[in-house]
């Protein structure tokens, strides 16, 4: 961008140019003349799918410096043809809302507040509790001696908002662990 000179003064441009009334070319600022979309300097665009309902609209995710900076419809999608509903259009905020939680939170029994916890510790604690609850509520057989091989001490809910692969691993592991009480929104 050249340094601003007297000739850039819009009044002069009004007098010299094709816009004597000062309502167009004469009054643009340098910033305006160099306007680019804010996605222009994105590090990349990733194809994605809207996470809300089951229509499965195509999304394009623009990201920069490891952060999502814009999400818009993918015109290539034969399902949605680039269009999004208000929720889909708000997906960027879903990722970047100021209320987004990024730290593990832990609440001890009978405590009145949350406290911080290392993810590593939390995972270990959960694994311990999983094993203990599984044992405690294990049912080898029913009252007629028929095999049950299950635990009723652990339950889960959710799956409709996460991925097929994630559901698969949950189903696989929970079933192997005998934790049959797993459910998702399809039942609700």
């Amino acid at each position, binding site marked *: 961008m050249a340094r601003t000179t007297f000739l850039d*003064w*819009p*009044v002069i441009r*009004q007098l010299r140019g094709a816009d004597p*009334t*000062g*309502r167009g070319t*004469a*009054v643009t600022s340098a910033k305006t003349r160099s306007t680019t979309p804010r996605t222009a300097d994105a590090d990349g665009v990733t194809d994605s799918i809207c996470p809300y309902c089951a229509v499965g609209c195509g999304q394009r995710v623009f990201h920069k410096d490891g952060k999502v900076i814009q999400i818009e419809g993918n015109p290539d999608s034969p399902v949605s043809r680039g269009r999004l509903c208000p929720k889909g259009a708000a997906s960027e905020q879903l990722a970047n809302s100021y209320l987004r939680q990024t730290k593990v939170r832990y609440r001890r029994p009978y405590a009145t507040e949350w406290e911080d916890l290392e993810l590593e510790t939390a995972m270990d604690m959960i694994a311990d509790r999983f094993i203990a609850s599984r044992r405690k509520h294990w049912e080898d057989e029913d009252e007629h001696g028929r095999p049950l091989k299950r635990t009723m001490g652990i339950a889960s809910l959710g799956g409709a908002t996460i991925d097929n692969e994630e559901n698969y691993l949950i189903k696989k592991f929970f079933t192997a662990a005998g934790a049959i009480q797993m459910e998702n929104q399809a039942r609700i």
Partner: protein
Amino acid sequence: MSITEFDADRPPELPRTRRRGRRRRRRDLTEVGMGDGSREGAVVEDVEFERAGEFDSYYGRPVVKAPPWKEPIAIYLFLGGVAGGSGLLAVGAQCTGRPLLRRNSRLLALGAVGAGTVALIEDLGRPERFLNMMRTVKVTSPMSVGTWILSGFATFSGVLGAIEVDRMTGERLPLGALRRLLGGLELPSSVGQAVLAPLLASYTGALLGNTVVPTWEAGRGHLSYLFTSSASLAAGGAAMLTSPVAEAGPARLLATAGVVGDVVSMHLMKESMHPLEAEPLQTGQAGMLLKWSERLAIAGGIGTLLGGRNRYIAAASGAALLAASALTRFGVLYAGLESVKDPRRVIEPQQARLAARRAAGITDDSITTAG
């Protein structure tokens, strides 16, 4: 109010009015379409409507928006008028050899234009960008045109004011070689001031008139007259207040003429308006201010005519006139801001003018078309 038997036992509901400034008002079904767009609850009572209660608007919400102008703008309008009028008095005084009137008027002009400019800047959303006003010259923008008038007038007033201050201090200002230059500039500045002064007083009529604010828009044809009249009486009043009666004769005449012009143009303006457009000038806070403005103007005018040669009566009358002018500006500003709140003031006059054009055989200029 909806009440349950448990209402008494629960804490009062905390209003969630954390939003500062503009507040949206909830309306209920009975209000919907009533068109009472006021947020403070001003009621339009004396206007009859064919189908009251079924007036078409979007939930009574305003169609147009009021500019974000607050009191400083009224102060600016007032001071600009005082400055313009004083500038004219100063020129006249210079030509007719009234040194005190000249000096006081020049200083008044400078002071008023300076303070007015401060008020104007104060009202900007981004005051630090005030100088952007000088980026362009736009004839389509009364604000732009006015800015150039204002800056020109302020420059001349500055020169003349400096000369007067220098004279008052017995040429003791450390001006050096500039003093000669200043002296040489006195005549051209005086001429410039004479040319720009009335424009400074009257362009504000276009500033307000060249809007879609219903009451101002409807007053387009009269606001300049009203404002020059108001400026005249204010400047006359200011001179009567500050200058000896002996030299203030022209000021008294100017003030008297201003009072007549003010009262007449205000009435003509109201009469030319659709009743809905005139109404904000007559009711509510603005109506009250304008009523007092008229009273003070007439009182000041009578005082000027009858007792203008008495120093005390002159001063009192001058003060009354200044107050009247200020009230006029506040009143007109408030009336305009009020007038946007009720969408009827926009829609009804527009419907009427559309119908009138159609009746006159002009049928091709509607924004709504069948194809």
